[in-house]
């Protein structure tokens, strides 16, 4: 059974068919990329998988449970964690606190326990801080823990956002253009990092424009064009697919 199974999903925004009858699977432990020209429906598809957008039709099944129509926080509770194309860090909070929000689902203390400063709440909090720091260490940004997250350099902010997503210990990680705005060295580091994330048993689904990252790192590539699926295979096959070459790579023959 695949970890994620998307079947016949469609989404319209007004008269625009953003996603039309798209189906695909993501097997456990795989890195899969969604590519396509601007406006191909990649982000809409992503938002449907993460619960931010409700599909008009079709089903999304994650680890055997129906996800379509579930709100984002429920989807997150099921083990899907995501990052955003335009980085969405929490301003006025340190990098560590940002990552600690990623531990939200891994603790239970509520409003009252927090207000009363109960021992259980404090123990949980300490554990959350330690675990968050471990994740930051895994990404090599532990030294930035106390810095205000939104004042960090762009690449560092991306890393903090990734740490926040990883801190929830998801089964599947959704990365929306993780290499956007990164320089070549940072992109190489990211590719290596994706491998290490997979090695931890986390399945990755990413939207990406950077072809070197997609072709070099991913196990499978789903290609969208005008909301339709035009290819879904391993990188070499996709690269040779005439339709992909036509709509995606265009006449430039890169």
């Amino acid at each position: 059974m695949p970890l994620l199974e998307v079947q016949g999903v469609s989404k319209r925004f007004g008269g625009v068919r953003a996603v039309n009858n798209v189906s695909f699977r993501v097997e456990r432990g795989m890195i899969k990329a969604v590519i396509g020209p601007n406006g191909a429906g990649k982000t809409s598809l992503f938002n449907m998988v993460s619960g931010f957008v409700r599909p008009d039709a079709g089903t999304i099944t994650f680890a055997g449970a129906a996800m379509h129509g579930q709100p984002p926080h429920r989807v997150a509770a099921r083990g899907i964690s995501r990052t955003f194309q335009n980085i969405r860090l929490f301003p006025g909070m340190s990098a560590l606190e940002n990552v600690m929000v990623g531990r939200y689902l891994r603790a239970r203390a509520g409003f009252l326990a927090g207000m009363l400063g109960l021992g259980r709440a404090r123990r949980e909090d300490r554990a959350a801080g330690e675990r968050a720091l471990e994740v930051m260490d895994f990404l090599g940004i532990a030294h930035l823990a106390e810095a205000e997250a939104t004042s960090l350099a762009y690449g560092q902010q991306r890393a903090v956002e990734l740490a926040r997503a990883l801190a929830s210990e998801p089964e599947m990680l959704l990365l929306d253009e993780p290499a956007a705005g990164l320089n070549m060295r940072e992109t190489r580091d990211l590719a290596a990092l994706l491998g290490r994330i997979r090695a931890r048993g986390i399945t990755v689904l990413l939207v990406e424009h950077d072809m070197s990252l997609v072709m070099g790192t991913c196990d499978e590539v789903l290609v969208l064009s005008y909301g339709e699926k035009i290819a879904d295979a391993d990188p070499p096959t996709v690269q040779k697919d005439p339709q992909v070459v036509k709509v995606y790579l265009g006449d430039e023959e890169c």
Partner: protein
Amino acid sequence: MPKPRHLPVAIFLSAAVAAHLVAAQAGKVFLLTQLTMSAYYTLAVLGLSLLMGYAGQISLGHAGFFAVGGYTSAALSTLDLSAHRTAGAVAALAKVGVLTLRPQLFGGEALGVHPWVALLCAVALSAALAFVLGIPVLRLKGHYLAMATLGVGTIVFAVALGTPWLGAADGITGVPPFPLVAGVQVGGSSAGRVANYYVAFGLLAAAMVLLANLVQSRAGRALRAIHGAEDAANAMGVDTAALKLRTFVLSAVLAAVAGAFLTHLNAAIGPSEASIMKSVKYVAIVAVGGMGSLWGALATSLTLSFLSLRGYFGELDDAVFGLVLVTAMLFAPRGILALRPQAALARLRRSPAPEPEPIPPHEEAPGDEPAAGLVGARPSEEAP
């Protein structure tokens, strides 16, 4: 972080003691009465500060919750059921202490609801009201939320003003003192002035401890996250609607408790407590104190409420609060406490320790600082 977290509260209480001693030394103990009243208004402001500064939601109807607390307490504790004393239900309630006798001004005794029970009813009613209103209202954002809460405040005001049972324009008078603990009553007698002062500031300090705990807790972090980037908080599993609702209810309860105690202190409440201008004053105080700064809100509220109650602003009282609000928005959109020390302190702390990785010049771009708008309104960037 064990002990020192509440050091500020200890300092605050010491300052309260100092203020008492200075006032006593100067022979102006009467000032404590206005300070006590200021403390209760501040209790309501703290709840609003949490709602606006941490949950990022505005309420222009907070005086409504304050009044619901005050009026419920006043109406129930001034009831006189002595005519029905023999009726079964009344007798039973009197027996378990829900109803209690109190001496009347012109002799005789009245049978009304015990103030503690009245307080519980006041809290329950305002919490229920906030809960029921919050579910639809908190779906709105920015201006719409402001309008909706403004409407709620207006309704409470109109009901208070138009209900004969609530005293209409005169309000409710003759509210009995509140028996807090043996020997200490929240009431208007000048003999109890000092005790009342410490009760109010004790309550305020307790609220600060609870709120400071909350802000640093898992739920508080989630709240701050909602304020900063709601979609990202959502994606981390935070049920933002539920958390906002809880904060809304908590802030309403704080306002109701404040309203109830102030009503017992004054032995009366009138519809002006529910007026829109009161709500606007609360919002102005939170804005001046700094969104997301409980201490800033506390200091601003105590100062402005005290000056206002002492009549320093005279006829221009409302205008002063309006001016304060405009000035704060123009010159200190992040609140007075953010005006100076933080940036300087941060720089001081940074410069001696060489940073492993230099922090880019982004540093002081409060461009997307959510505190900037009065309404806390950020365009909701719903990704299509």
